[in-house]
């Protein structure tokens, strides 16, 4: 059955999602364990695949038993397998977490929420696993449609944010489709490996250049890199907290994966670097994105919005790493994808927990929060450390590699940007921690008598455990980062670097 593990990853969430609404008629409560079960199976098989890939190398799975250029195939190399594990693990964590949070925020829509949740996970997995350009588009649309609707059920402003996302997302997906068409028009193929084989002869044609630019534009919109990030902050802020905890770590990371795939597998690195030197453009955009995202994040009072701008900044890091296009830079980018998934997951989960307890996310209301929710805030601190880049966490290593890559590429400005952005990160996270830890409740002069004792008001266990697990994940990724690099990421780097 291990031969069929690749399809099981996709088909189990899909088929379980089909049954979820019917199950919801019988009992609403059944949906939650059902979702957990499906994602657990999916996660197990993704682990099996990772193991197989590590042992035996790239897996090819032919759907419908057709040979690759004619049919669709799955190609799972190290990067895919790593992304599959990350997606399934994060979505499992968020699924565990979602129970209480969803019951609080959208109590009457639980059944359909879980259906679309599973479909969205299916979409992410399908994008990552597929080896066919058009198939990626289809699954991208599944993930996007699910994302639109999940964002729109948030708070008051959510529908408008979601509509902006619909417009931008459609432009992005259509650009992607357009560039697939351009590639198809000159190669006649849709399979990634086949296209990669055929493309080098055509590198000096306008068509390929246009295709590349539009593909990067489309993926960039989905990824929310700097000039095209306008939809992201509002969407992630106003979505339900479980949704933003699912989408902020995963959607952008999946798009980042797609960008790495396009830059280094579909197009050869030589083309990107030597022929048109698009990479320096990307890294500049990334650097500006880092600064802009961080500066906007400082200006926010809402924790979720701050985190959303932080997402934009972190995407900038990844784009920077991709654009550096050398060994260290790409290692840093991939490691940062792993790191970001866990870190942003953790931080958004904490934000959701705070919303669950306080009913809002304004930073000024966080007074005394460290006393009230010690475990949650500890996790928050770990996440913040990881974003800032303090040693035992994973963020330190990814930033280290990025800085090394910048030095190797002789781009000292980027080193400065990276260090400066760390300082900005310190500023905005320190504000939160300072308010939560050190600022006391203002003395209430109208009342006499002693202050009330601080009640420990921790979030429920189903929310606390995921938060702690992600925090632990950050630390583990940091501690075992060399192992991750030597086992997985080393194989991702193209040979020419």
């Amino acid at each position, binding site marked *: 059955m291990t031969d069929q593990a690749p399809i099981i990853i996709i088909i189990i969430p899909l088929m379980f999602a089909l049954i979820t609404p019917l199950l919801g008629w019988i009992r609403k409560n059944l949906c939650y364990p059902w979702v957990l079960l499906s994602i657990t199976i999916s996660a197990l098989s993704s682990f099996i695949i990772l193991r197989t890939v590590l042992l035996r190398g790239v897996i090819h799975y032919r759907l419908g038993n057709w040979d690759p250029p004619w049919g669709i195939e799955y190609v799972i190399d190290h990067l895919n397998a790593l992304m599959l594990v990350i997606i399934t693990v994060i979505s499992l964590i968020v699924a565990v977490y979602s129970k209480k949070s969803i019951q609080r925020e959208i109590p009457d829509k639980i059944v359909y929420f879980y259906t679309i949740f599973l479909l969205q996970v299916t979409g992410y997995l399908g994008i990552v696993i597929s080896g066919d350009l*058009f198939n990626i588009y*289809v699954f991208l*649309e599944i993930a996007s*449609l699910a994302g*639109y*609707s999940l964002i*729109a059920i948030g708070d*008051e*402003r959510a*529908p*408008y944010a*979601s*509509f902006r996302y*619909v*417009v931008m997302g*459609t*432009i992005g*997906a*259509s650009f992607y*489709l*357009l560039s697939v*068409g351009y590639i*198809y*028009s000159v190669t006649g193929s*849709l399979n990634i490996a086949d296209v990669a084989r055929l493309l080098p002869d055509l590198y000096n044609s306008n068509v390929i250049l246009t295709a590349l630019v539009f593909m990067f534009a489309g993926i960039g919109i989905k990824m929310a890199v700097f000039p095209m990030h306008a939809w992201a902050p509002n969407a992630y802020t106003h979505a339900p907290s479980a949704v933003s905890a699912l989408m902020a770590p995963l959607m952008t990371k999946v798009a980042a994966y797609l960008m790495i795939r396009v830059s280094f597998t579909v197009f050869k690195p030589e083309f990107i670097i030597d022929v048109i030197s698009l990479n320096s453009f990307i890294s500049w955009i990334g650097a500006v994105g880092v600064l802009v995202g961080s500066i906007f994040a400082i200006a926010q009072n809402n924790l979720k919005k701050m985190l959303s701008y932080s997402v934009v900044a972190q995407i900038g890091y990844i784009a920077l790493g991709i654009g550096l296009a050398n060994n260290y830079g790409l290692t840093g980018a991939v490691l940062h994808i792993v790191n970001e998934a866990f870190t942003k997951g953790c931080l958004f989960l904490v934000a959701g927990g705070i919303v669950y307890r306080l009913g809002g996310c304004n930073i000024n209301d966080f007074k005394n929060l460290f006393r009230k929710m010690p475990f949650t805030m500890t996790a928050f601190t770990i996440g913040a450390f990881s974003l800032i880049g303090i040693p035992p966490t994973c963020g330190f290593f990814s930033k280290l590699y990025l800085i090394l890559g910048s030095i190797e590429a002789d781009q000292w400005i980027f080193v400065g940007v990276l260090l400066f952005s760390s300082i900005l990160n310190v500023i905005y996270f320190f504000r939160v921690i300072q308010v939560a830890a050190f600022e006391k409740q203002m003395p209430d002069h109208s009342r006499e008598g002693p202050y009330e004792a601080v009640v420990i008001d921790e979030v429920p266990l189903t929310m606390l455990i995921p938060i702690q697990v992600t925090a632990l994940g950050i630390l583990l990724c940091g501690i075992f980062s060399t192992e991750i690099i030597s086992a997985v990421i080393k194989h991702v780097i193209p040979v020419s670097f």
Partner: protein
Amino acid sequence: MIDFIIERYNFWIYIILMMIGLYAMITKRNLVKKVIGMNIFQTAIILFYISLASKRGGTLPILEHAHGEENLTVDVSNYINPLPHVLMLTAIVVMVATLGVALAILILIYRKYGTLEEDEILKKMQ
């Protein structure tokens, strides 16, 4: 030069349509207009793909003599390339699905703000 333009006029028209759709999506303040622009934009891309598929002197991608004849040799240049058609069927489905979700979100927006004009919505938000 003239030949060069005429040879590809389908592509020019698709670019014009795409620009119209994109302009409507970016500039129009009415949300329904944006959705209409979205529709035009996606249709333009479909037009591009179908133009890729067309073949001078080709007929429909449906075999004429359906059954019975074994070992019939099919001349490839007689039939239009069917692959872009298939891709575009999927794209049309995606178009319809996006349309449905966009309209549903639009109704939610109207429910909250009572208007479909973007500037009025932004004004009411503050």
